[in-house]
């Protein structure tokens, strides 16, 4: 029971169980779910249209053609979808779990509190839908581009996607954990999420402080630009740094989460 393998098996089993529970819960809220999926689909369409509107007047932005920009959009959606499918419950942490003291629920269960928290929305279909839509957009864009897709390249691309998803999850966890100090951080989360949206543009267009911010501080460049740039233009320094940044940020976020829980337990739920 206490061997690492036993623990792993136990958590995997619980994850499967709770995913099933989450799906069944969605069935009872079908209308909510459909609205959510519709909203995401619409967002994709509108984003593509926005690109279309701008490219009506120019042929390239900082050297990126319309197809390339659409590919970037698709990659960003895919990464975001992967994250969305597993960490959506963090929004609740930022929104109200600390403020209303409801977090105690996760502290009196015999599993890791963060797992317990995330498990309420595992394999969230909205996220999976977003990832699938992202793949479709990538497919559309790739159709008009001459991409070199050998297996090694695809493996690196997959690693970059994973690193991007980690970055997304870590930033979300960091911001949600702010709520431990500010009681709620939903507005920050929403604001930064909007910011992640606008960071779907080629990194080359930004002034250097923004570039630094998007790679070093809130590395949203890793969630879209870096994988897409690799696919289009081959490896760069950021390609190799991305997994490191993703890992470091995740470690930091986990540390802040546990500090936050400790604070929550000190000031009282």
């Amino acid at each position, binding site marked *: 029971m206490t061997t690492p393998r036993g623990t792993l098996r136990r958590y995997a089993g*619980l994850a499967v169980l709770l995913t099933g529970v989450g799906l069944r819960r969605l069935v009872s*809220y079908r209308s909510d779910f459909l609205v959510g999926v519709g909203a995401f689909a619409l967002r994709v369409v509108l984003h593509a249209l926005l690109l279309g509107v701008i490219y009506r007047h120019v042929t390239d932005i900082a050297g990126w053609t319309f197809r390339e920009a659409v590919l970037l959009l698709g990659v960003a959606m895919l990464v975001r979808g992967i994250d969305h499918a597993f960490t959506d419950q963090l929004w609740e942490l930022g929104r109200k779990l600390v403020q209303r003291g409801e977090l105690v629920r996760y502290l009196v269960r015999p599993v890791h509190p963060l797992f317990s928290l995330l498990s309420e929305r595992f394999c969230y279909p909205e996220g999976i839908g977003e990832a699938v839509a992202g793949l479709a957009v990538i497919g559309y864009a790739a159709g008009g581009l001459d991409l070199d897709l050998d297996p090694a390249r695809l493996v690196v691309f997959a690693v970059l996607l994973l690193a991007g998803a980690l970055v997304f999850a870590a930033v979300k966890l960091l911001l949600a954990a702010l709520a431990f100090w500010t009681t709620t951080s939903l507005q920050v989360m929403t604001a930064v999420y909007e910011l992640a949206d606008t960071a779907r543009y080629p990194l080359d267009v930004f002034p250097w402080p923004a570039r630094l911010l998007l790679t070093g501080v809130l590395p949203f460049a890793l969630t879209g630009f870096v994988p897409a740039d690799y696919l289009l233009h081959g490896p760069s320094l950021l390609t190799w740094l991305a997994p490191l940044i993703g890992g470091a940020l995740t470690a930091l976020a986990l540390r802040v989460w546990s500090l936050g829980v400790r604070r929550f337990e000190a000031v009282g739920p």
Partner: protein
Amino acid sequence: MIEAHELTKVFRMRADTRPGLWGAVRGLFSAETTEVRALDGVSFTVPAGERTAYLGVNGAGKSTTIKILAGVLTPGSGHCRVDGREPRADRNAHARAIGVVFGHRTQLWWDLPVTESFRILARLHDLPPALAEANRLLFDELLDLGEIADRPVRTLSLGQRMRAEIAAALFHAPRVLLLDEPTIGLDLLLKDAVHELVNRVARERGTTVLLTSHDVADISAICERVVVVDAGRVVHTGYLHELLRRAPTRTVRLEYAGDVDPAAFAHHIRLELGDPVTVTPAGRRRVTVQGPPELVTPQRVLAAVTGLVAVTDLVAPEPTLGEVLRALYVAPQPARGGR
């Protein structure tokens, strides 16, 4: 089973913003805090298998203590052990050992039916399938789940939900059950149902129970021992029946036949019994005698009136817990922010 030793807890709260617009603007820049001493050296023990009530007025530190014992709040100083373990030493082991209900804060899966919550709890706690099934049947019967089994928890009435909460806290057969205000907001019948649920399961399993409440009915229905806190300190511990004996006043009601002047009669009894005793004529041929327990006993009252009237009825009711507690809360009770 539960040991608390010199627990203290001080909360720092942001001072209330001053009234008015200017006060609100100043609130923008100030960071004044006030200290609230919720626990001021609380020590007590609860032996295994005993059901103990943790009593006190609002803000006396009851919930704070329960949260510390549940491991979701760290004490400022002092320490405690539950089931032989510091609550925060091993969260998982502690979570398996205790079941806890925090008043109105739900621990069920809000959007799922109760049965589904039970299924998840069984898996979270790795209950053997046989035990899980037995528990499911037990609570199915106790909660009368038949009609509500498939309804999401959030659509249940408060009474149904509260019982479901307690059942969920008991589902993994914990050795210790912590209940924080389990009957708050419930009517008499629903309170009885909660009492029955706790008594049935806890008594059968020998679960150690610590229950906070300011409702006397909860205590006398469930617990045999009491710990009384006031202003963050324990002011009394002991068995319930002993506590009742510590009542500061005793009452004897007397009915008699015969014609005497009620005022003179009352005066006579007062003289016979001694000074702090009060005697009030209560309706036709009836008096109520009240005073310290050593002065006001049925025997002494009877002796005092013998020869004057013929006694037709003599009642010496048990003191209520409420009366006893009121006397125990020695300190004046300022408004304290309970958390």
